[in-house]
C-alpha cells in the first residue's frame, strides 16, 4: 500500500510540512528532510521552486526566488533526493508548477519520481480535467498519487468529482487566498470546514494555506484529517535556521 494511504489509516491529526527545495541554501534539502523526520512530522512536501508561483503568497514566492538564484533546478533536486528512502519512510510529495515539469518532460519526471520513491504530486496549475484526460494513467503507472485542491468556492458537484478521481488526499484550501500564515480562522472558514467534513468524502482531507500555530492547527484538525504548514515553517527557517525545526514542530503539537 502507498505510504500516503497508510499514513491516513494509521494516524490522526496529520501534520504535513512544506519547504522549498534549495532554500535557505542550495543543498539544505536532505538536512531539512532529516530534521522533519526527526521532529515527528507525518508527511513532507518538497517544493520545486518556480519563477512565477502564482498560487503562492509572498513567503513562498520569496523562498522560491532565492532557491532559484541559489541554483536549484529539477535535475539537482532529483539528484539530491535519489537516496531519499535511506533517510525517511515518511510519505514525500513534490509540489511544483506545471511548466518546469513539462520542460523536464512529464514522463521523464514521473520516472524520476518513481526512482526516488516519491509518493505523490501537487501541481496547482494542472487542472482536474486535463489531469484526468491526459495524466491519470501515467501517474498511476509510476505509483504517483496526485492531490487536488478545493476551496470555499468549489461546488459540491466538483468536490464529489475530485473525490472520485483522487487516490491520496484532498488539499483543502483554508480560505480565499494564496498561501500565507494566518493568526486565526474566522467563522466563515470554520463553517466551510464543517460543511466539507459533513460531505463524508472517501478521500481524507488536509487543510492548507494559513495554518501557522497550534490554534489554527487545532481548529482545522477538528474538521479534517490534519494540516499542511508551509509559509510558517519557511518563516521559521528564515529566522532561526534548520536546527530549530524540532522546537518549531513541538510547539505545534496538539493532543
Amino acid at each position, binding site marked *: 500500500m502507498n505510504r500516503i494511504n497508510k499514513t491516513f489509516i494509521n494516524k490522526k491529526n496529520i501534520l504535513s510540512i512544506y519547504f522549498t527545495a534549495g532554500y535557505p541554501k542550495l543543498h539544505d534539502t536532505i538536512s531539512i528532510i532529516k530534521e522533519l523526520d526527526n521532529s515527528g512530522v507525518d508527511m513532507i512536501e518538497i517544493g520545486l521552486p*518556480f*519563477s*512565477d*508561483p*502564482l*498560487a503562492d*503568497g*509572498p513567503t513562498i*514566492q*520569496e523562498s522560491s*526566488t532565492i532557491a*532559484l538564484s541559489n541554483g536549484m*533546478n*529539477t*535535475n539537482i533536486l532529483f539528484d539530491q533526493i535519489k537516496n531519499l528512502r535511506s533517510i525517511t519512510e515518511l510519505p514525500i510529495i513534490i509540489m511544483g*508548477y*506545471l*511548466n*518546469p*515539469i*513539462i*520542460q*523536464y518532460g512529464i514522463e521523464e519526471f514521473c520516472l524520476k519520481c518513481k526512482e526516488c520513491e516519491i509518493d505523490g504530486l501537487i501541481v*496547482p*496549475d*494542472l*487542472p*482536474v480535467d*486535463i489531469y484526468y484526460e491526459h495524466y491519470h494513467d501515467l501517474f498511476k503507472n509510476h505509483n504517483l498519487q496526485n492531490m*487536488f*485542491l*478545493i*476551496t470555499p*468556492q*468549489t*461546488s459540491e458537484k*466538483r468536490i464529489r468529482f475530485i473525490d472520485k478521481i483522487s487516490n491520496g488526499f484532498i488539499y483543502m*484550501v483554508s480560505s*480565499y*487566498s*494564496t498561501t500565507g500564515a494566518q493568526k486565526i480562522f474566522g467563522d466563515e472558514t470554520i463553517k466551510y470546514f464543517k460543511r466539507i467534513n459533513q460531505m463524508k468524502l472517501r478521500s481524507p482531507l488536509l487543510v492548507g494555506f494559513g495554518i501557522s500555530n497550534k490554534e489554527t492547527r487545532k481548529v482545522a484538525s477538528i474538521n479534517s484529517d490534519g494540516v499542511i504548514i508551509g509559509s510558517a515553517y519557511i518563516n521559521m527557517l528564515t529566522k532561526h535556521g534548520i536546527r530549530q525545526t524540532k522546537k518549531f514542530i513541538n510547539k505545534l503539537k496538539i493532543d
Partner: protein
Amino acid sequence: MKTHNVNSKGFYGEFGGAFIPEMLYPNVEELRNNYLKISSSKSFKNEFNKLLKDYVGRPTPLYFAKRLSEKYNTRIYLKREDLCHTGAHKINNTIGQILLAKKLGKKRIIAETGAGQHGVATATVCALMGIKCIIYMGEIDIKRQAPNVARMKMLGAEVRPAISGSKTLKDATNEAIRDWINNPVNTHYIIGSVVGPHPYPDMVARFQSVIGEETIDQLQELENKSTPDYVIACVGGGSNAAGLFYPFLDNFDVKIICVEAAGKGIDTGESAATSILGKTGIIHGSKTLLMQSNDGQITEPYSISAGLDYPGIGPMHANLFKSKRGEFISITDQDAMKWGLILSQTEGIIPAIETSHAFAVLDKKKFKPNDIIVFNCSGRGDKDLDTYIEYFKL
C-alpha cells in the same frame, strides 16, 4: 475546414486552455459560462457599440498613407487605433470587460499593466462606471512609465507596485492573479491582452475584433474590395494583432504578419522575440509559446518598448506561428526607433514604440505596387516621448 479560431475547449490547436489553480476555477468558470451569452445579447451589444462610438471615438479611421505609399511603391493603410480615447486599442477591450463585469455584479476591478496603457484604459472605464479599481504594476515599470502612473491616479485608481520577481509586467500579472484568488467573489480581473486562461484570449480577441470588422467596411468604401493583401501588427501579448486579424483568420487570401520585438537582437540575450526564442509551456494559465530557461523558469524578456516586453504570446498567435498561417518577423530596438521617426516625419503621426515595430517590416519585405497593406497603428507615441527624446537626443 481548418480554423484558426478557438475550439469549444478553449484551445487553438495545441495552445490555450485554462491551466489555473483550483482557487481560480469558479471565477474563470463564471466567465466561461457567461462571456458569450452576455456579450452576444442585444442590450450588451448596444451598450458596447454606443460607448465605442460616443466615448472611444470609433470607428477609427483607415488612413491611406500617401507619402509612405509613394516611398515604398505600394498601398499602405493605417488603422488608426492611436486615435482611440486614452491613445491605444487597449480600451476596446476594457470597455467590453467592464460591461461584462457590471452584468456579473462585480464591484471591484483589478488589472495588470506594463507600459501603463492597459492600466490607463482600465482606470478610465472604472471611472466611467464609478467602480473601484486597483492596478498592479511592476515597481520598475512604475518608475519607467511615470506619466501613465499619474494618469491612473488622476482617474482615481490605486496603483499597487509588484515588488516580486523581476518587478515588471509578468510579476504584475502574478500579483493581479493573487489578488483575484484572494477576492474571488466581488472582483473581476480585466486582463489586457489575448493571454491568460480561456476564455480570456477569445474574449479579448472578440472585443478587439471591431478593429478588423471596421477595416473590412472601410476598405470596401475606399478600395471597393473588402480584403487587404496583408494585415500587419506588432505582438506583445497579441491583442491589437488579434483584433485586426480576427475576421481574416480563416480567409487565406489575406496574409498575416506578426511583428515581435527583437530587442537588442535575437542572439543578444536581450530580446522579446517569443516565437523564435520561446518553447511551448504554461504561463499565466495558458499553454503557449514562452521564453524560458531549460528547466522551465520563465525568463525576463527585453525590449525598448514596455508593451512588447512580455515573455509569452497569446495562444492564438502561438498557433498562427506553429501552423505557419502567420509570418513572424522580429524587429530590433534600433529599427523600431528609426521607424518612429520615419512615420512621424512622413505622415505626421508619432507612433507608440510598440507600433513602430510593425512599420519596420517595410524595410524587411518587398511588397507589390498593388498590394493593399493594412498596418494596425495600435497606439500613439506620447507615452514614449521620454524614450524618443533620450534616444534621438532631441
